[in-house]
């Protein structure tokens, strides 16, 4: 059997990952957004006794080695020159995509170009056969989703006959001059490529060959490439009828007055559908089915054989069913949230959102591109943090990654519903909304603080291509839904089940490894641990051991917080009413004295340490130092914000609304006037010509 190595490369958002998925049958994440693929991925496929190794490289515009992705891709291509390079292009944006193709030809790659048509409509008719002849490389016209195209590509790869591509497009440029600076012994192709890079004043290549001379030809070369492309397109294609990415919808979605209201409305609809109407309907149904057809039969089986008292029954009842089912019932909601996020992404709307928010976010030191990461953070911070990788500025990337855990991820939602519902009743909707907003506001404030102190972001170019709006197919929606269901089930089946068992064991055994069950007067291991840490949380209004132990267990996964509280109270957390009743009952192991302490607990759950999986990803993405700092910061922020909210809310309860409100207003006015006065004094020290620049003023004097 022969192994053929193939690398897949193309501009961002040309359907590269879709092609990779259909070729290899895998389920990598696809979106209508640039840079979804952030690192190379490998897949294998087979065709007629041939094994094909396919490497998916990040989407790039050129081989200029300016960004992280470009470096990854170019280095890979230089190192693996024998690979066949499948260059995927978008039919409707071919003139821009060809620029990368020319780069690949310069590099001397064995290029197989595939032209993918994503939109139904063609913006222009292109004579592919003619283009193929002119460019001197093989071109296939495909649809990345169809099976036939895939077979065609596989066949073409296996029968690929290498003709050395010729560089036709740099006629007027003297490569010889730069070639002199290169060491002898390079092949002709290598020599040409490095000479071009030297002429473009590529820093890395210059360092590699110790060349200091400045050639200043980048402009000329780029023009030459584009002129060549223009000529090609004039010869081989009709005139373009529509601008790629332009749409009448933008008149509404990017309207000065309507843009933000529409965005808020869309987000509100998403959250309403996910968590309240559709989502809660599905989740109630699922809970009923699980209760009726899984839990009751098995438990009655155990009861008839072993009796309802004792270790085994208790173990199955509380450790396995109660905990796992209570988490499982949130499955539809979590999957729905991911579906909606992916619809927003695939439709092309997110690029518009990034455009809208760039104004505001650049003020607090983030980029419009952070919106994507932060929105994904509502789903799951672990996967969201990964998407921060395609940001240009290192500091902005670190900031975005550190702020993502402040977003209220889907795992925290059960806590709000179960605990908040017990005390706030109908008003819980507003409490939940408030919590989501609180996370956002704190993220923005933290960003501002980071920006002013340690993580000042550099000038960012914010170059973002506008993808066309695309209708999202039902097939794609189902795929995302079931993929997330699968992921969630895997998580529940492994991590959460295991953690529930551990929490149950720790909660039901004493330090002398004696099973204590419901016996009063014995202290379990977890209770002892909780008691040690509980005093720290007393100023926040929840100093009882059970709540603190639940927080510790929640470090592994936030879903466990609810189920472990239910475990401590010896109630079934899938029976919501029983569970909520036990939270109010002073006789149970874990209860809340008043609604302020519930509120405080919810806020703390929202803000405290991210789960271990997120910490792991943070560590990988931004390094030890920043992870440690960020996580610690998060705890500190959580602690103080919670303390503040608890005390204010407590004051409302005790002194009545009006008095506290007036007091708070006076307090705020005093603080603002202080800030104002300090600013005035500072300004006086400055001359009129420039503001806030003491150093410059001194120089001028």
């Amino acid at each position, binding site marked *: 059997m022969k192994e053929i190595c193939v690398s897949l490369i193309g501009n961002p958002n040309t359907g590269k990952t879709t092609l990779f998925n259909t070729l290899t049958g895998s389920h990598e994440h696809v979106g209508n957004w640039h840079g979804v693929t952030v690192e190379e991925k490998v897949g294998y496929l087979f065709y007629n006794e041939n094994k094909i190794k396919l490497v998916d490289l990040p989407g790039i515009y050129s081989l200029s080695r300016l960004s992280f992705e470009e470096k990854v891709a170019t280095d890979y291509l230089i190192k693996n020159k024998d690979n066949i390079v499948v260059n995927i292009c978008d039919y409707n944006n071919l003139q821009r995509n060809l620029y990368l193709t020319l780069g690949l030809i310069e590099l001397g790659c064995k290029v197989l170009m595939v032209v993918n048509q994503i939109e139904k409509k063609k913006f222009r008719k292109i004579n592919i056969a003619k283009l193929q002849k002119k460019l001197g490389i093989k071109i296939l016209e495909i649809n990345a989703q169809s099976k036939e195209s895939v077979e065609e590509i596989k066949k073409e790869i296996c029968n690929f006959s290498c003709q050395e591509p010729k560089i036709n497009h740099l006629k007027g440029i003297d490569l010889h001059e730069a070639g002199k600076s290169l060491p002898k012994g390079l092949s002709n192709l290598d020599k040409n490529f490095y000479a071009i890079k030297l002429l473009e004043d590529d820093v890395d290549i210059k360092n590699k060959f110790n060349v200091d001379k400045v050639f200043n030809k980048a402009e000329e070369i780029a023009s030459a490439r*584009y002129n060549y492309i223009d000529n090609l397109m004039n010869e081989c294609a009709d005139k373009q009828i529509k601008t790629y990415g332009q749409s009448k919808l933008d008149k509404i979605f990017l309207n000065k007055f309507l843009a933000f209201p529409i965005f808020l409305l869309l987000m509100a609809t998403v959250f309403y559908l996910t968590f309240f109407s559709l989502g809660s309907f599905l989740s109630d149904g699922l809970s009923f089915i699980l209760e009726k057809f899984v839990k009751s039969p098995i438990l009655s089986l155990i009861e008839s054989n072993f009796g309802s008292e004792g270790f085994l029954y208790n173990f199955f009842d509380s450790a396995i069913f109660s905990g796992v089912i209570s988490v499982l019932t949130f499955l539809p909601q979590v999957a729905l949230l991911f579906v909606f996020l992916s619809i927003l992404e695939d439709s092309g709307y997110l690029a518009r959102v990034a455009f809208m928010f760039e104004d505001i976010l650049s003020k607090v030191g983030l980029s419009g591109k952070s919106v994507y990461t932060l929105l994904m953070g509502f789903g799951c911070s672990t996967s969201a943090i990964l998407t921060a990788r395609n940001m240009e500025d290192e500091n902005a990337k670190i900031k975005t990654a550190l702020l993502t855990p402040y977003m209220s991820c889907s795992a925290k939602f059960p806590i709000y519903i179960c605990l908040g519902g017990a005390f706030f009743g109908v008003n819980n909707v507003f409490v939940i909304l408030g919590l989501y907003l609180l996370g956002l506001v704190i993220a923005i404030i933290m960003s501002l603080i980071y920006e002013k102190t340690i993580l000042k972001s550099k000038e960012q170019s*914010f*170059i973002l291509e506008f993808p066309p709006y695309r209708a999202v197919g039902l097939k794609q929606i189902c795929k995302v839904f079931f993929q997330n269901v699968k992921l969630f089930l895997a998580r529940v089946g492994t991590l959460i089940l295991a953690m529930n068992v551990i929490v149950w064991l720790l909660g039901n055994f004493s330090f002398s490894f004696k099973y204590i069950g419901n016996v009063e007067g014995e202290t379990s291991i977890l209770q002892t641990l909780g008691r040690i840490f509980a005093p720290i949380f007393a100023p926040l209004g929840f100093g009882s051991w059970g709540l603190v132990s639940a927080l510790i267990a929640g470090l592994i996964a936030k879903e466990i917080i609810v189920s472990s509280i239910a475990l401590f109270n010896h109630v079934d957390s899938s029976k919501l009413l029983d569970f909520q009743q036990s939270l109010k009952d002073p006789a149970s192991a874990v209860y809340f004295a008043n609604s302020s302490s519930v509120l405080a607990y919810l806020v703390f759950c929202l803000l405290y340490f991210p789960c271990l999986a997120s910490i792991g990803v943070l560590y990988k993405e931004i390094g030890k130092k920043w992870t440690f700092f960020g996580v610690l910061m998060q705890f500190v922020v959580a602690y103080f914000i919670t303390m503040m909210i608890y005390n204010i809310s407590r004051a409302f309860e005790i002194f009545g609304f009006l008095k506290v409100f007036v007091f708070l207003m006076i307090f705020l006015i005093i603080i603002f006037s202080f800030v104002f006065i300090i600013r005035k004094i500072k300004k006086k020290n400055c001359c009129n010509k420039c503001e806030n620049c003491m150093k410059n003023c001194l120089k001028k004097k």
Partner: protein
Amino acid sequence: MLTLFKCKSNRNYLIVGIKEDCYFSIKRRLLDLGFTQGQRVCKVKSSLLNKVVLVEIRGYLLSLKSKIADYILVEER
């Protein structure tokens, strides 16, 4: 000199060049994206606070920071 940032919306201009004081990496990125001399370009939209502009070039749409658009010199044709 007129720049892509200061020019009027929804009108065609020709690119004259990129300012000298532009960072080299940004200049190369702009060239790669097709902002070459003599190319037709059109500013489609500015954002609310004028921090970003949306530009049509070579048959596709691209958003750029206003500061960067200000490096691109254009002339009326």
